[in-house]
């Protein structure tokens, strides 16, 4: 009995901290409509800032607390609201989620940049290890303080939201933002205040939690998944229910430590997965929202219907690039390039799901991990059967994962997939081989997995051959994705993304459609994962298939252009390619920590990605054959120089970029003629252009001024 009481009290203390975190999350969500995935990362930064002041610089705890919770955290929260979140009020949900996830990735990177993850950060709770006894149970002052703070917060928030002017304005902004503005409230100010308070609460929860778990970047950041679950029990609205949810999760976790048999191969890490499992169950019982039409304010998305001709040219270019690279790269580099392509295939799995269907998955690397596990155990010798099994099994797992949340879609699907990823990270991927009856189940062994490289009639025996096969595979999958886009299935996906309400009323079963595309995407990720593990030099670690690794994949995919293969390639290049440079250029490692997140924040708002800008940038070449020829010829010369080993490294990269840009630059400088800018044609056109259109559809020039002067009877009148 005493053990039960002890476990419960410990659980309540943890629950109190979760309640503090979840309250901040609900507060920002209800006030601004943005689900802050970075809430945990903000808590992590708060905890490290406190460590810096309190333990590294030796400031007294009360002063350190006031500085972090009263100054740094609220300022940081307000800054994020003003600089990033304010622009997202009318953005589609996918964009909000991607930007919010980018913030998580960026803040995590920032934390690791400032406080080296390789070093220990010893912390103590408030009042050290001092404790007191109640009914024979020891309670540390730190835990008691956590409980007291949660109660004070509950009372304080109630008073703030119902009795103060700022609180009432905040609630008004939640109900109806435009109406509250008409009534004299300032929703922007309320939003800023909510983010400031939310950030402070995140920091407080981080500071309280750090001594109880460990002062480490990722665990503190992932604390948020526990808070997600609590907030979801409160349906992202009700603070009392959020508190109840936190209590449930905290106490369940504590009871699990006490009562789950230990040591046990199967259950040792189970408690870490409890919040994610609770989140899953809550999503199962949430009511399905009505299909909605599209909002009024939308950025115009461009997801072109690719022509077969263009797609075949692109696919051939992938293969040609593979062939070329296999000739110029060293053996080791060829293997690395093959691995970049394998990761790009995992990225490509997001194109139908995110690009076409507008649904989000935060567990694509977890699916890749499942594919790797199946390949390791069923694909001995790199057999094709192993690859097929990896695809099928992962697709089935994907369907199972999606089932509870698929009818909810959007944010809820993102949360469910995140929860699934955490269950794998914390529990299933850490399991040692175990037996069910006479059947031995093996996932990762000691967190590592040895996967044979795919075997294809001897073509993959050399690293160069493997690279070519990977390039062909990527090209074929790219064509498969193009086929999806061109099919009725693809049209259905785009229709659903555009207007779920209209799609439903023409007879499309949205739930089935989402399930189908999620299954397809999971299968592709599983296939990519089997190849990713198979192209590794040596064994792979389960750390490569975590929730935290899935996030940059998604956001770089969006940054590159999620409607095409470009995002997938960008993700592959940055995530698998950049680490190759760390040995030679250590500053790259620091850059790589913050680059994906920062790119996501800056570019995640543009649903068309970098590829669309590139497409528009290079479009003039299509109308200027000479400039196109210059570009192709100079690029060919540079590639030839590299082939002949006359140039390499950064000079080669610089020359290549210059060559690719050469035709366009010469065109812009007027050195090369453009078909639509030929002077004589312009003269012809002028006769047809009405005066009021001059200078609108093309640059304004001197002839236009003369024409205007003529029409207005101002010829010869001097301009003073």
């Amino acid at each position, binding site marked *: 009995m005493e053990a039960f009481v002890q476990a419960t009290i410990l659980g309540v203390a943890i629950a109190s901290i979760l309640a503090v975190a979840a309250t901040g999350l609900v507060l920002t969500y209800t006030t601004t409509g943005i689900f802050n995935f970075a809430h945990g990362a903000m808590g992590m930064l708060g905890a490290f800032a406190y460590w810096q002041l309190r333990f590294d610089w030796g400031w007294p705890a009360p002063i350190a607390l006031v500085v972090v919770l009263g100054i740094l955290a609220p300022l940081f929260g307000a800054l994020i609201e003003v600089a990033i979140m304010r622009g997202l009020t009318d953005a589609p949900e996918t964009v909000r989620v991607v930007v919010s996830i980018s913030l998580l990735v960026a803040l995590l990177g920032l934390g690791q940049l400032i406080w080296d993850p390789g070093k220990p950060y010893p912390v103590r709770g408030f009042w050290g290890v001092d404790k007191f006894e109640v009914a024979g149970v020891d309670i540390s002052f730190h835990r008691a303080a956590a409980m007291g703070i949660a109660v004070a917060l509950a009372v304080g928030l109630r008073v703030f939201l119902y009795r103060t002017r700022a609180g009432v304005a905040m609630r008004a902004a939640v109900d109806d933002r435009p109406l509250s503005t008409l009534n004299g409230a300032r929703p922007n100010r309320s939003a800023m205040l909510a983010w400031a308070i939310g950030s402070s609460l995140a920091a407080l929860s981080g500071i309280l939690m750090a001594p109880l778990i460990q002062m480490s970047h990722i665990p503190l950041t992932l604390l948020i998944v526990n808070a997600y679950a609590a907030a979801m029990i409160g349906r992202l609205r009700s603070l009392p229910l959020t508190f109840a949810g936190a209590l449930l999760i905290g106490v369940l976790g504590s009871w699990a430590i006490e009562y789950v048999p230990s040591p046990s191969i199967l259950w040792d890490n189970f408690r870490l997965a409890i919040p994610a499992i609770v989140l899953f169950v809550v999503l199962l019982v949430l009511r399905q929202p*009505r*299909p909605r039409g599209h909002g009024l304010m939308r950025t115009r998305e461009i997801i072109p219907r690719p022509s077969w001709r263009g797609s075949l040219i692109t696919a051939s270019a992938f293969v040609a690039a593979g062939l070329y690279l296999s000739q110029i790269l060293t053996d080791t580099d060829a293997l690395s390039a093959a691995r970049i392509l394998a990761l790009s295939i995992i990225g490509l799995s997001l194109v139908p799901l995110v690009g076409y269907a507008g649904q989000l998955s935060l567990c694509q690397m977890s699916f890749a991990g499942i594919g790797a596990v199946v390949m390791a155990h069923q694909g001995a010798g790199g057999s094709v059967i192993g690859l097929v099994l990896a695809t099928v099994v992962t697709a089935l797992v994907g369907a199972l994962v999606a089932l509870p949340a698929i009818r909810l879609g959007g944010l809820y699907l993102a949360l469910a997939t995140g929860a699934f990823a955490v269950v794998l990270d914390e529990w299933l991927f850490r399991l040692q081989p175990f037996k069910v009856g006479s059947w031995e189940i093996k996932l990762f062994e000691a967190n590592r997995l040895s996967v044979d490289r795919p075997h294809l009639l001897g073509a993959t025996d050399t690293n160069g051959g493997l690279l070519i096969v990977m390039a062909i595979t990527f090209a074929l999958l790219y064509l498969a994705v193009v086929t999806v886009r061109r099919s009725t299935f693809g*049209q259905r996906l*785009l229709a659903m993304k*555009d207007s779920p*309400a209209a799609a439903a009323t*023409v007879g499309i079963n949205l739930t089935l459609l989402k399930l189908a595309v999620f299954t397809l995407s999971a299968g592709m990720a599983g296939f990519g994962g089997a190849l990713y593990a198979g192209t590794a030099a040596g064994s792979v670690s389960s750390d490569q298939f975590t929730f935290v690794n899935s996030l940059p994949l998604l956001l770089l995919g969006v940054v590159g252009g999620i409607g095409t293969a470009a995002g997938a390639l960008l993700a592959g290049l940055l995530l698998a390619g950049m680490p190759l440079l760390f040995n030679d250029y250590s500053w790259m490692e620091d850059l790589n920590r913050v680059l994906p997140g920062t790119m996501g924040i800056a570019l995640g708002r543009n649903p068309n990605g970098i590829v669309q800008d590139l497409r528009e940038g290079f479009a003039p070449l299509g109308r200027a054959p000479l400039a196109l020829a210059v570009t192709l010829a100079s690029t060919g010369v540079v590639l030839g120089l590299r082939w002949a080993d006359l140039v390499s490294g950064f000079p080669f990269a610089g020359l290549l970029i210059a060559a690719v840009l050469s035709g366009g630059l010469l065109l812009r400088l007027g050195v090369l003629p453009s078909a639509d800018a030929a002077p004589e044609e312009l003269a012809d056109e002028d006769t047809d252009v009405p005066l009021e259109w001059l200078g609108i559809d093309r640059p304004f020039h001197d002839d236009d001024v003369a024409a205007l002067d003529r029409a207005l009877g101002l010829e010869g009148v001097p301009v003073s």
Partner: protein
Amino acid sequence: MSLLNVRDVTVRFGGNLALDNVSLTAEAGQVTGLIGPNGAGKTTLFNVITGLQPPQRGDVRLGRRDLTKLPPYRRARLGLARTFQRLEMFGLLSVRENVELAAAVQGNSSPAARADELLAMVGLSALAYTRSDELPTGQARRVELARALATEPRVLLLDEPASGQDEQETEEFGEMLGGIAASGVAVVLVEHDVQLVMRTCQVVHVLDFGSMLAVGSPDEIQRNEAVLTAYLGTSAP
């Protein structure tokens, strides 16, 4: 028995009674009008019929079939189609793809040919390959109409289809509606252009503040005192 039967539907949004015990019927082969001031509940009623808004009370029947518990896509497959007051195009798709998709979803064996046929009917063949979110409102409404027709509906619900169209287009549109109804479809028309409603409809329902104020032929409605009071603030002299 009427083809579409809406009975005693009540919808509440919080404390706001959007529809209060509303009933409506529509016959095959007729255009049924539904008019009323802004906020009367017309679009909400369409949402209830198509399954986008579950009612607190009441039921929706298509012939003998009770649709009340069916999801929107099942209702569409049974023969309910609609257009939207606030345009809901599949903006990422071309005009032709919008219509072709609807035909394909309903199992049409040659959806592309059907799409071309319908686009010719609504006069948009020339814009078939334009991205649909580039169209002005009037033309976009025609695409929505063609898309709805591509599902081969038995009941067609049109939510302000003439807004954004000029006078001549509206006149042609009225004739087209007559033709669609004549092919055996029950057309329900929500429209602010009262002339168009009176000219096209055989029966007119008047909705006001969530309640059905009057039902009758266009002549009866034009003489109905309650309607005149609601619309003009005073009864006719």
